[in-house]
């Protein structure tokens, strides 16, 4: 079945220069494997489309049931250069939570 990420995960985002950092965290650590399988760097890139001019890199933190994404060239120059209202990418984490992922019902128990 397809479910939106916000059903199983929360997120916080911030900036590292012109890169947006998104931490994606499973509410229940048993659901980490769904995040690891479904939320690939390529899917995050596709989700944000033309907002991300550079690469998306993913890091895994299984000990926290979490993934960390760096979305390069995603903040309009970053910091003080950016003309975006969300110059520091504070809302990008929430934006990721609308992504739909595939999960078997047995995995969601």
């Amino acid at each position: 079945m397809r479910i939106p990420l916000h059903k199983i995960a929360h997120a916080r985002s911030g900036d590292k220069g012109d890169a947006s950092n998104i931490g994606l965290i499973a509410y229940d650590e048993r659901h980490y494997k769904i995040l690891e399988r479904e939320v690939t760097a390529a899917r995050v890139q596709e989700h944000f489309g033309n907002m991300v001019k550079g690469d998306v890199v993913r890091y895994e933190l299984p000990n926290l049931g979490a993934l960390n994404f760096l979305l390069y060239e995603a903040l309009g120059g970053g910091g003080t250069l950016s003309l975006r209202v969300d110059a520091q990418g504070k809302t990008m984490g929430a934006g990721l939570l609308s992504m739909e992922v595939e999960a078997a019902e047995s995995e969601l128990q």
Partner: protein
Amino acid sequence: MIRIANGQGFWGDWLEAPVRLVEQGPLDYLTLDYLAEITMSIVQKQKQADPNMGYARDFPPLIGRIAKMLKERQVKVIANAGGVNPIACAREVRRLAPSLKVAVVLGDDVYDKLDALLAKGHEMKSMDTGEPLTTIRDQIQSANAYIGAFPLAEALATGADVVITGRSTDTALALAPMVHEYGWKADDFDKLAAGTIAGHIIECGAQSTGGNCQAHWKTIPDFANIGYPIVEAEPDGTFAVTKHKGTGGRVSLDTVKEQLLYELGDPRNYITPDCIADFTSIQLRQEGEDRVRVTGIKGRPATTTAKLSISYLHGYKAIGSLVYSWPDALYKAQVADRIVRERLAQLGLTFDEIYTEYLGVNACHGPAAPAVEQIPEVQLRVGVRGPDKKAVDRFTRELIPLVLNGPPTATGFGDGRPPVREVVAYWPALVPKDLIQTRVEVVE
């Protein structure tokens, strides 16, 4: 066990937070993090205008306000409030709180040494773009090395009640008291990494105690009286994250995890002047209400380089907005945007960037935003950035005329034309670590 709190996540954070931390429960060390990357350029400008300024001006009055309590309760303060003028900051603290002993850590400011460094062949290439520093030499506003925990611990060893630094790392503020109290050495990598991660958890103030937390945020109690974070650090490098009893907010696995991932790069390589911390080694356990135990942290030796935080002028920018209402709110705003761009082109004005957003539609999440059918209103937000101040200033006159000479129902122009702002950009660079020499001074 020692209790280390953070009462200020940035310059501009809640003024009551540090006062309440000292007032509302037991505490040994109060840390205050005032410096963001671009703050150094702001304080540098203030120092150029007045040689007695150039530091976080909120800090001395705060210490004046809580001086008596600090003495009574034996709470020490560590703050990177010194900006580019820690001595002036310390003197003002002494004036407002004469009973306190104040020590400063100097040596982070390398602004006056840049030409000597360049002459010796240190290129100080941007860690972001790889360009050499010479390309922006004339535009540089400030240059500071990030200082680690050991010089701060040395300052605590003088018996100071208040330690003031310039550009120390945020995490060093919390690690320093652990190094000082427990005598941790430069090669105690696991412990240094643990203290660094403790610092990372509390450096953004209430962001680890329920502030800006997405997990179950509607159930987080009493935001108005939110408690700021406290680390209870043990000599073996383990620690608990908590907050004072009776305060608002929450300390849970969710709130701590969100902060752990905040502004994180490669989790295995969190590099500070003190060590490299491995975030994949962290083990968390909810130990009680509003109490998370942190164990298992591993660290590795620090790198041989020091990171510089350099700020430089990068032209000008202005951002203006208008609001359009139903019907066809978005279409009207799109037409208005085209008109502005056409008029700027007719004037022959060019910019590094012209950027348009539609607030209320998709400004935050772009293509990831949910589709909207009919919107009651939208805010058109247009920004320009470029090297020519006159061009940016001319742009600021191009939005308000649309109220009368563009699509109907434009409003929201009450603040007049937007200000032209100088853009100060950030240039991170590396130099060999031994070029940075710190020293501690007690200010009488």
